[in-house]
């Protein structure tokens, strides 16, 4: 008996060969080389010079790198905090109120509408908003002038005081639909009887939302929080198009900073060190994510 099952389970390894080879060449090898370069001074041509940890010492004292990193932390508000909270409220509202009063079709329509900004390329979203926020003929300043608030008009993306905030507005717009879709699917798992029982026991809407809904869709909330945090570290296209990291470096983010080292200033060794620092943070977040998912699976199987 034992023999026949092992016969059935054998011979699958072959199918992994193309995948493993492709991975070694496209992901592992470049990652290792990047790791190696981060210990060198290299301008992309000639031979790299081994300098040990010097790039990382520079990194620790590099104010622009830390500013980029701090910007990413601020952008977490736009990518993770606001979309998760607003998405949770919107999804609950669509699910509870709109579906029960107007039917599934109407609430699906709203869900699709809120999701729309997610499907266009990040760089194109940047182009559209750059156009909207233009200092001279942009829509925002046009509206301000039209309602008599000419003094409020502003070079939103071009001045240091508002550039990061403007980028955040764009990111919230892009990001909001993702949690709405995930949370609406999650809400379908909640059995209506639980909410009904709570209502009979006199629970208010807010109490039900807080103690039942949020509690039961906790897995999805964590998925959204972790994935959007990882996406925050990867933001590139929007910043490239909207501000190019400027003015000065006020809207620089690590990925853009690494790009600049590689392809603008030609500090390839240093760029590798910057990108390695990003990779380490993302790997830590991924481990957190996997840990959480496997714990979730274990809980479900019990």
């Amino acid at each position: 008996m034992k023999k026949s099952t092992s016969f059935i389970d054998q011979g699958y390894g072959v199918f992994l060969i193309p995948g493993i080879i492709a991975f070694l060449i496209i992901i592992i090898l470049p990652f290792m080389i990047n790791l190696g370069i981060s210990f060198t001074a290299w301008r992309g041509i000639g031979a790299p010079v081994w300098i040990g940890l010097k790039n990382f010492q520079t990194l620790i004292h590099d104010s622009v790198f830390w500013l980029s990193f701090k910007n990413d932390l601020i952008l977490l508000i736009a990518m993770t905090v606001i979309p998760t909270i607003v998405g949770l409220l919107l999804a609950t509202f669509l699910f509870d109120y709109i579906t029960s009063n107007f039917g599934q079709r109407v609430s699906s329509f709203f869900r699709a509408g809120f999701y729309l900004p997610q499907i266009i390329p990040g760089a194109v979203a940047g182009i559209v908003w750059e156009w909207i926020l233009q200092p001279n003929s942009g829509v925002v300043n046009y509206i301000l002038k039209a309602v008599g608030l000419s003094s409020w008009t502003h070079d939103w993306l071009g001045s240091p005081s508002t550039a990061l905030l403007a980028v955040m507005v764009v990111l919230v717009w892009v990001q909001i639909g993702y949690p709405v879709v995930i949370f609406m699917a999650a809400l379908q798992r909640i059995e209506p009887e639980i909410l009904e029982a709570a209502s009979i026991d006199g629970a208010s809407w807010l109490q039900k939302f807080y103690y039942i809904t949020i509690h039961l869709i906790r897995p999805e909330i964590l998925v959204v929080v972790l994935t959007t945090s990882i996406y925050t570290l990867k933001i590139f296209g929007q910043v490239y198009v909207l501000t190019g990291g400027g003015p000065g470096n006020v809207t620089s983010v690590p990925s853009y900073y690494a790009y600049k080292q590689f392809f603008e200033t030609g500090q390839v060794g240093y760029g590798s060190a910057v990108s390695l620092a990003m990779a380490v943070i993302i790997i830590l977040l991924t481990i957190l994510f996997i840990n959480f998912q496997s714990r979730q699976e274990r809980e479900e199987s019990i």
Partner: protein
Amino acid sequence: MAPIRHPSVNSVAKWIVLIALSAVLLIVLMPFILVTINSVKTEAEFGLYGPLSLPRGLNFTSLIDFWNRVNFTQVLINSTYISLTVAIFGVILSLLNAFALGVGKIRGRVWILVFFLMANFLPQEALAYPLYYFAKFFHIYDTALSVILVFTVIQSAFGTYLLSSVFSAFPRELIEAATLDGCSKLGLLEYIVAPLSLPTLSVLFVFFFIWTWNEFFLPLILLPSNANQTVPLAMAVNQGQYGMNITAQSASGLLGMLPCLIFFLIFQRTLTRGITAGGIK
């Protein structure tokens, strides 16, 4: 009295709520609307009536000018070719990997899966320079092939992860019965596993296509010349060049969004099914 009045008050409130929510949606959709209405205005019209007025006629000059300026036909062909090829090979590679890991349950599969997921999440910056160097070394720099190779692997990392978990629930009896009947492993994949998982494979296909279409960072590095650019790349690189005027800029935004809006209309169901299936973005 009360039971009769109650529903009517309620229904008025209901409609007010719906209108309020529609207003919120309208704000979210405003960038799409604005870009559309201003792409069909003349520059003079824009100057006279501003960005908020409805167009007084359909003027396609800005759109056509921009289309020709960036050779949009070529750009569309590039994007379609790259995204389609990546979607096809990405799905095949995911299928092969997931067949070994999900159905085959080979040893150490959990670690291999973690490794695949990590590869998908890894910042592309940490691979960018070596990939750029490789592409030059193998003379595929500035060709669609370079981008296709890289994204087939990156997308299949996620595909492998998602598909393996789907396959681990694959009915064991089917596999055993077919094997005992003398079906080879390849036959198993070709005639049983692949056909039965077609719905999941089609979700992956659509996502790979759209993700690849929307990619920006690596194409920016690997495809420098205008003739090889993808849609987001062509839009971004041409932004603000040739003293582009305001209606031309909105035309570029519209042309950049339009293909994705069309995909969305076609694949809306597949997309929502996919997002809810795996926490896919």
